């Protein structure tokens, strides 16, 4: 780090460097100015990319707007009530709950197990960890396409192998059957995102001193007791944060479902983002689509507030 900053320093003429040093020293002495300097880049971008578009979408949800026509006609908050009471919205919301919470539960279990597995030191552990973390780096678009290809009922490798080893007699359209479509999408989606949990958990596991475990061993603790008494309390908060973020992200997940199933078969995998997409681009009702997204936002915001109150995921910092 310091090598890099030295190099950068060397590139800049000394006078400028001194001058900017002076300015920055001044800025950093004053709390208010420091805060302004520190938060402005992040907040400016945040306003441009998140807040303004969101306000626009909330506003839009109160108007009758066709996707194909830039004319807005006031309709009012009654629209949101109509959406809430519509069967299609409720069904999509139910699927979102299954997809969102189901995926996150799956990701936590798989992600934490994987972290525990590659946490130990052994020859090749660095390679093993790199391999374990790799799925997180593969773009979701690619995963969606590869998943679709592997699961294809006609030529997909998964069916070919399952038939060859005799588990199946006939190919199964995993993405085409109401019984399997949602579960399949959840598993494929989680292949990548479970590793996010692994990453956070593994980082925390690596920081638990070895002598904690040695101490526990001397007290005669078995493997389960060590996990319960030494490991779990130390990774609990990491898991809570990961669960919060993953829930927000999975509820808004669009690309991987859209690429693999388009919300089908029928509407079996049409979660809220896909429902909003259908309303906007198949039924051409942009205003209603914005309303659907706005209601989703309200749900996630309420859920997060409750979550912060109950789970206190950022509490760990002050303890440590």
């Amino acid at each position, binding site marked *: 780090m310091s090598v890099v900053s030295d190099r950068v320093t060397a590139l800049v003429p000394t006078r400028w460097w001194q001058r900017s040093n002076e300015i920055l020293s001044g800025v950093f002495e004053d709390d208010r100015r420091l805060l302004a300097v520190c938060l402005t880049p992040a907040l400016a971008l945040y306003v441009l990319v998140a807040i303004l578009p969101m306000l626009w979408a909330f506003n839009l949800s109160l108007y009758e707007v066709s996707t194909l026509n830039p004319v807005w006609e006031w309709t009012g908050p009654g629209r949101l009530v109509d959406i809430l009471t519509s069967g299609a919205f409720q069904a999509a919301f139910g699927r979102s709950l299954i997809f969102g919470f189901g995926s996150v539960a799956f990701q936590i279990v798989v992600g934490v197990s994987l972290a525990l597995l590659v946490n130990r030191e052994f020859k090749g552990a660095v390679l093993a960890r790199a391999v374990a973390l790799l799925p997180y780096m593969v773009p979701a678009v690619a995963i969606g396409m590869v998943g679709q290809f592997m699961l294809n009922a006609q030529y997909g490798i998964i069916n070919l192998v399952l038939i060859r080893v005799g588990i199946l007699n006939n190919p199964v359209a995993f993405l085409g059957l109401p019984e399997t479509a949602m579960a399949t999408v959840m598993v494929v989606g989680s292949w990548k995102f479970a590793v996010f949990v692994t990453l956070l958990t593994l980082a925390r596991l690596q920081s638990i001193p070895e002598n904690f475990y040695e101490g526990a061993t001397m007290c005669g603790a078995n493997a389960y007791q060590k996990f319960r008494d030494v490991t779990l309390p130390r990774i609990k908060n990491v898991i809570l944060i990961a669960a919060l973020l993953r829930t927000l992200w999975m509820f808004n997940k669009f690309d991987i479902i859209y690429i693999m199933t388009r919300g089908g078969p029928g509407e079996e995998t049409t979660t809220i983002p896909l429902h909003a997409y259908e309303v906007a*681009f198949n039924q051409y009702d942009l205003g209603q689509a914005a309303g659907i997204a706005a209601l989703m936002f309200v749900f996630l915001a309420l859920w997060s507030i409750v979550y912060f109150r109950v789970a206190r995921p950022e509490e760990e910092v002050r303890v440590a």
Partner: protein
Amino acid sequence: MGESPNTDGSTPHLSRRAVVAAAGVGGLSTGLAGCLGLGGSGSSEPVKYISNNNSPQFKEMLRGFAEDFEEERDIEVDIEFTEIGGDYGQRVSQLIQGGNPPDIINAEQFRIGAYATQDILRPVDDVIDAVEEEEEEVPEKFGFVYDGSNRLVPAVASVTNNWYRSDIYDEMGLEPPTTWEREREAAQAITEADNDLYGLGYTTSATVYGSYHAWTRLWGNDAKVAARDGDTVNVALDSGQNRDRVREVLERAQQMVEYSPTATNWDWGEIYESYAGGTTATAIYSGGRPKTQSIGQDRPWADATKRVSNPYNSSNRNASLGNSAATGYALVQGSANPEGAKEFIQYMVTGERLVEYARALRFHNIPIYESWYEPGSAYRDGWDYLNDNFDEETIQGERQALFSDETQPFTAETEPANPYASPAFTSFQLGQMFYDVTEGGMNIDDAIDEAASVLRDNTGME
């Protein structure tokens, strides 16, 4: 181009009669056009065209057209290529909502109504007149008339083909699948035979192809989606005798899916892949892709791939059997250079450009000029691909289906044309209805009611 005679003089033509027939359909349009700043004139702006064909070959060809056009007319053309399907509509709506609409968009006839009913398309009657002057007259059914004016400049078309493996059919002594009875018998025999083949790909999906397949299947029993009552268009699925016919089709669907691989999420890609890949022996398709793909993948059955029309119920054989889907160009309101755009469209759909374009489509989409089908026409002359791979029976069969009353666009259920056929199509509710009664386990009458009610809520039909 014009040297071959028009073989069917009685076909109605686009430019004149259609305009009269559909006058007075909608009343909304004139008011809004003003707000949109109709006709930004300055030809200094480049013509902006969003193309829905992004294959390298098409990109190169269309860029070539644009360059030649620029050189000839000194009007710059800026083409953006987007993947066909959902992405395309998303892109177009983004530009429209962003106040930066393109001049030219691509549209199939079964999609154009969604744009037209929002009053965002400019009339193109003058373009069609100019094109007809240069080429031949364009049959009326390839156009789309809304509020008294044409809104689509058709370039090519595709027709409902029921492609089947004549090698298998002949070997097993089966009749070509022209009627429900023959189709079902063949499908059952092929599925039950020890040949790793399913009889057909009976699709029950809420996708574009799912909509197409469902609507085509309804027509096979003379069942309609819409009916007109004066100025209003009604959903006809759930009323009177028509409902009984819909029910018959759905009952049959429950039976036919037994002879098909699971096709609950199939779109265009899956249906032709299943045929070209040797999983199914029959495929209903808009256009020639099951055959062109079998040729492209060197399948032994490429030559044995023959067409018949959409299978029909012999006791209800009154209506058109299949869909004739023209596809072409439309002009968007509020764009920067409409005059240049009109010139460029005309340039693309006439002369050697159209010949080149139609050839690049490899007889998947087919010409809208009947004379082109004649051996010795400029189009066929020296085009090895078509002459080597398609027997005369298939070529003339497609032509006959396209230019006769055997096929109509989905909009033709009502007279004047149904502008809401397009939102009904893209809502995917028909495919959903087929899914509901097969894999979805819903009672047939409930599924019909559900589909009808969603269509009423979302399409502008009553």
